[in-house]
């Protein structure tokens, strides 16, 4: 039996299995995405006694030779990789839905001690969370597509507006300063795109929670209706809590960027080394990814805590 958690009880740190599940799913699909480029590199350079270390050698001659061949390998690999990435982005809505379900709901757990039997809400079983994830998949996928398109449109408009302003101000300010204005204006549009992303995340939280509640009550709504209800709840939540939500998202994003920096420093330090260094680098990179998944879970927990009262009040 899945029970919705009270906002103060929603914490990502209580759902390590669900976080690990998302991480493993993403890693698995990332290995699929990496297969074409890996196969290509292995085919060309795998026979070298130093393997693909030559591709990472300073000077990058072999890297340029590899990428610069006049055959179709680069184009085929690039297109295949992009398609796999896009498919993965949609497919990953499933484990993501399971993660959010795991955050939003608890499972009654009975324990006995000296004072007698106690009932508390523990983490739901992965199977149960996945079932909610499956039922929420379609609205989540549609939300993902629509949210991405909306953000891209805003970014595109920002690019056009910033470019136009840049050209207008060049004569008066000089091109360096007008370029700064351009960057600032574009950053403002990017901030709007980020806020759209925050609202979409609120909607995703609401959608998963809605799906879980429907499953618990034994009712089922069409995916489109679930998504629309999720959007309405997200918009209603935004009216009262957009600032808090954005702040919560921004803080975690900053930490996420710091994790990326750690990954960059590690790659820069180890370069094209193999053996133990490569294993260590893999470990650091995976730790970075795991940290980012945990941050995402933490953010979605926050989003759930914000939408839950609004959703329950309906």
């Amino acid at each position, binding site marked *: 039996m899945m029970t919705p958690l009270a906002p103060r009880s929603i914490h990502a740190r209580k759902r390590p299995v669900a976080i690990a599940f998302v991480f493993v799913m*993403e*890693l698995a*699909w*990332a*290995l699929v*995405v*990496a297969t074409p*480029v*890996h196969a290509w*590199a*292995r085919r*060309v*350079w*795998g*026979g*070298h*006694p130093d*393997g*693909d270390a030559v*591709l*990472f050698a*300073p*000077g*990058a*001659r*072999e890297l*340029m*030779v*590899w990428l*610069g*061949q*006049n055959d179709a390998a680069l184009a085929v690999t690039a297109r295949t*990789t992009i398609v796999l*990435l896009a498919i*993965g*982005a949609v497919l*990953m*809505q499933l484990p*993501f839905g399971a993660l959010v379900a795991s955050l939003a709901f608890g499972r009654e757990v009975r324990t006995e001690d000296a004072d007698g039997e106690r009932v508390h809400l523990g983490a739901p079983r992965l199977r149960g969370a996945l079932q909610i994830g499956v039922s929420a998949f379609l609205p989540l996928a549609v939300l*993902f597509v629509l949210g*991405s398109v909306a953000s891209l449109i805003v970014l595109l408009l920002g690019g056009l507006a910033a470019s136009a302003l840049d050209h207008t101000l*060049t004569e008066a300010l*000089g*091109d*360096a300063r007008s*370029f700064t204005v351009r*960057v600032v204006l574009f950053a403002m549009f990017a901030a709007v795109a980020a806020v759209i*992303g925050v609202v979409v995340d609120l909607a995703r939280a609401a959608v998963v929670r809605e799906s879980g509640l429907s499953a618990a009550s034994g009712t089922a709504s069409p995916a489109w209706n679930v998504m629309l209800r999720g959007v309405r709840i997200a918009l209603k939540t935004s009216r009262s809590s957009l600032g808090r939500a954005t702040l919560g998202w921004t803080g975690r994003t900053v930490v996420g960027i710091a994790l*990326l920096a750690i990954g*960059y420093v590690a*790659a820069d330090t180890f*370069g094209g080394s*193999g053996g133990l260094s*490569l294993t260590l680098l*893999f470990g650091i*990179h*995976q730790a970075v*990814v795991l940290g*980012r*998944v945990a941050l995402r879970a933490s953010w979605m927990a926050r989003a759930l805590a914000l939408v839950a009262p609004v959703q329950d009040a309906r």
Partner: protein
Amino acid sequence: MQARALAMSVLVVALCGTMRIAGADSSVDASQSDAIAADVPMAAHPERVVDYTLRATLDPTLHTVHGEGTIAWKNVSSQPVSQLWMHLYLNAFKNQSSVFMRAPIGGFRGTTIPKEWGTIDVRKLTWKDGAEPHELWPTAQLRRGDDFDETDASIPLPRAVAPGETIDLAVVWDDKLPSIVERTGFDGSFHMVAQWFPKLAKIEPDGTFAHFPFHHLGEFYADYGKYDVTVDVPEAFVVGATGTVTESHVEAGRRIERHVQDDVHDFAWTAWDKFQTRKETIDGVACTILFPAGYEDHAERELATMRFALPHYGARYGKYPYPLLTLVHPPAGAPEAGGMEYPTLITTGGSSYIPNGVNLIELVTIHEFGHQYFYGLIGTHETQWPFLDEGLNSYAEAEAMAAWKGRGSFLDLLGLKVGDSEGHAERARHFAHDDRVAQPAYAYGTGSSYGALVYSRTATILETLRRVYGDKLMQRTMGAYARRFRFQHPVPRDLIETFQNEMSAEAGEVLRDALFDKGWIDFKVEALSSHAVHAAAGIFDDKDGKRATTPAEHGVSGKYEGWVLVVRRGTLHLPVEVELVSEDGARTRVPWDGTTDSVRVPYVGTSPLRAAIVDPEQRVLLDEDSENDFATAPGQAGGGAPRTLERATYWSQLLMGALAP
């Protein structure tokens, strides 16, 4: 036409040999005593052939320049001259029928149709022959036949000018600057004034003039002399120009600056009312950076580049002889004015934000500064032999950038280090069989092949020679060439002979083949094999008649023998190393002189031969296909591609996280 040009060059070399002895003031610069080629005599001054004393008045609203002045020209050839040739290169932008504009060249800069056309109109050209002035311009011919190009004018003289005789010409002309197309023009109030005055073509020793229309891909070739130019601009404008400022004052709202420079073969200037200025004396040279507001970081990077480049080039190619250098960073609206070279004045470029680690600013700056040598001090014929300036200069640029920035000389960002030389090699590789490197600029079919072969292929050929024959020998060779031909007009033969004499006959031959005959090379590890060394198996009778049988599985020596077959494809012969990799990790390098088509390198080791690599140090950058430079023995495994898998997986995770957070 190419053969004729080559024959003409040979003749020029032969005649120039005499001229050099007569005209060049040879002296060794003591300050270069630490340089490897410091003992090579280097001229302190060129033979002065033509002196220009000009005054230019800029109207920044109409974008016009009114010019007048005098030209003192000496017939330094061995023949009387009865006709002058004058370059009117601003007419390249007069209409779409000029040689410049109608050249079917894509893939290179300068392909924009100007929004405003440019012209140069000579109003008067007078020869003050004693007391009698001769008006020369009425008989001048700007066009030939149906050709509308007006960049190359012939001017008949009323009498022949004897060898050694100097004549004085008075000239008045008007320029209408084009909107910036390439090299010259205006953008708003920014003016880059190059190829702006009537300029006499270079007189060759045989009395002919090296005259030619302004071609899209080549323009420079001129005699050395003194330029004394007074520039008259509105007071608010900042001027940058060839030569030292000897007079400067403001008069009736006009800024008047006189710039004087000896020993140069061109003069260019710029004027803008929005220039910011930074100055610093580096290695005894007064460096001035002129840049738009907001580009302070770029100015600092350009100065930092000069702090490295001036002493580096001085040690390699002889001390920079002029007291000043002006670097102009054009505004963003005039990128085509960037990346150009004029005596003591270069233009750089780059958008307002270029992160550290992307060494574009440094690279452009060092490249254009390098032209002070390979174009300025060594006055080669750019139209006829463009590789002699752009190619040698691209080599010098890559060498200097590597000496300064290391293996990430082009890009050092996100853990990726991309070398400038490696970039040249990759760019050139795709064009190696298309065309000869050593041919006139106008003979190239596309701008892409011109760029790849003239700039990158030449740089790659020279970098290969440096890596194969050693840095010191290369420094010596290039240093000797740069010093010996300072203030001269060398041709390809001079370069090849210098390599033959200073480096080796073989190196000279490689250079000649690669430049003139599309010479190419591709090493390939064709096959390899090894086996355990056993004592011979079978029945053996000793001296006493005793018979013993040695089975095949006995008598294992613990040694392995084998071979690697390396093939050299192509026409170039270069020595190379072959690395033999044993199963136990031992690596042995065996040199091969590369003179035959193939070599079978023997292997002896304590474990089976695992793999072989030809040219493991990547010295032969000319190698066409490095993907066949290695092979693994049957049954042996290579190193695989675990790094690629790790990076690709990580980036895929990040991208998926970003796409669907």
